[in-house]
């Protein structure tokens, strides 16, 4: 009885370790009991300890730089835009010009933004460039499917924005004069 219990306990321990190893690395700044999970360290003047704050979103869902992280990066997805675009340009603008959502303006110039980024091409006058909706949709979903070395975030493949948000963004871009 005793031996059996020990044996079972050993099994449980092994299983527990395996689950953790397959799940999240042990050396990330993370608190499973906090609301947002992801933590960031804040130095406090004249203090020998860091203050840990919650980040605005849980970033542990995606691969990290940890050597323990065995989760693969998702490869490029080719997608087809099905049916009518059915996008809301006004909603798309709210997603594009919001640092905590699409954050498109970090890298692109958008009309009315004095701080626009220059990491990617300007999006001013986009409607005159004649790109089909399906091509714009694929680019936002995962640009790597068009250009394997592309650095634009794969919003669809990585589950950052849902399909409707991407449809709204396409509608917004195709409205830019």
């Amino acid at each position: 009885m005793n031996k059996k219990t020990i044996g079972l306990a050993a099994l449980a321990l092994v299983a527990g370790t395996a689950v953790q190893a397959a799940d999240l690395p042990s050396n990330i700044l993370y608190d499973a009991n906090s609301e947002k999970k992801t933590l960031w360290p804040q130095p406090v003047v004249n203090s020998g300890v860091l203050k840990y704050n919650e980040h605005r979103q849980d970033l542990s869902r995606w691969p990290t730089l940890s050597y323990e992280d065995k989760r693969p990066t998702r490869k490029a997805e080719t997608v087809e835009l099905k049916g009518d675009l059915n996008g809301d340009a006004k909603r798309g603008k709210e997603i594009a010009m919001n640092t905590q959502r699409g954050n498109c303006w970090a890298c692109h110039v958008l009309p009315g933004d004095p701080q626009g980024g220059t990491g990617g091409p300007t999006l001013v006058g986009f409607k005159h460039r004649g790109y089909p909706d399906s091509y714009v949709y694929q680019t936002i979903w995962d640009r790597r499917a068009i250009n394997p070395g592309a650095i634009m975030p794969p919003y669809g493949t990585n589950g950052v924005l849902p399909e409707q948000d991407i449809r709204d963004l396409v509608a917004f871009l195709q409205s830019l004069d």
Partner: protein
Amino acid sequence: MRKPIILASLALAAIAGGAAAAEKPYRDMIPYIDYSNPAASGDAKHTNTYQYWKDRDKLDPARVTSGQLNWTTNWKFMDAPYNDTLHGGYVAQDRGEELFKRLNATGAFAACLGARNNDLKGLRLQYPQFREDMNRVVGMEAMIEQCAEKQGMKLENGSYDNSAVSIYIGAFSNGMPIKIDVSKGPLKESFEHGKELFHTRVGWTNFACATCHVNLVGKSLRGQTPTTHFGDASHWPTYRTKDELQSLHVRFTECNRNAGTQPLKIGSQEYTDIEVFLTALTNGYPVSLPSARD
């Protein structure tokens, strides 16, 4: 009776074998640029801004004050001794002196860090280093935490007080060029790992450090312009003008968050390897503390 134990052993063996055989998970990479002879001057073949910041006393004021060209000075205009306006880095240096004197009453703290006869000059150049007793490569701030603990003081790696002590000690090496040897042994291994991590794409953005510092260097990212990763490591910890004293590892956690990547623990092997990589890319450039940057 025996069966569960055998099963448990089998399971353990399978996991151990699996871990050993486990391949690296798939990652997209940013292609390497030339790191064959790591040194600050290597930037000449990258952003070619080295010419504007290598001679700090000849920094062009027009470049420094230009919103478009400021990034090409690599923030060297806010380094000591060229910037002696009283910023938070100097306040931290004073705090560091006070803490150091308390910690080093017997000389054991400085000796623990590797100083000979309490001489702090040149100590900064010995880091990052491989510690045989710990069997790992460590940065100066990691050792400050270790050695302070032996004196009964908690100086968590990345905390204000830890960075303050690091700035105080580091400033004794002001003007002395960084020169770590990453051509052999554990530092070479750490350098190679750091180089790989720097170019590894992760997070929801699928960005690497190199996405911003190789591909997008000099581009405007909503008010921030990424600078070259060459010649940077010799002025950390630094005072960020948003009023925060940051060690290099604390900065990495902010870089990670800005790029949509889950940050790692301060002092982790991964961050230490990136620190070694960046320090080697600063070889030949002098220690310059205290410093400030946006």
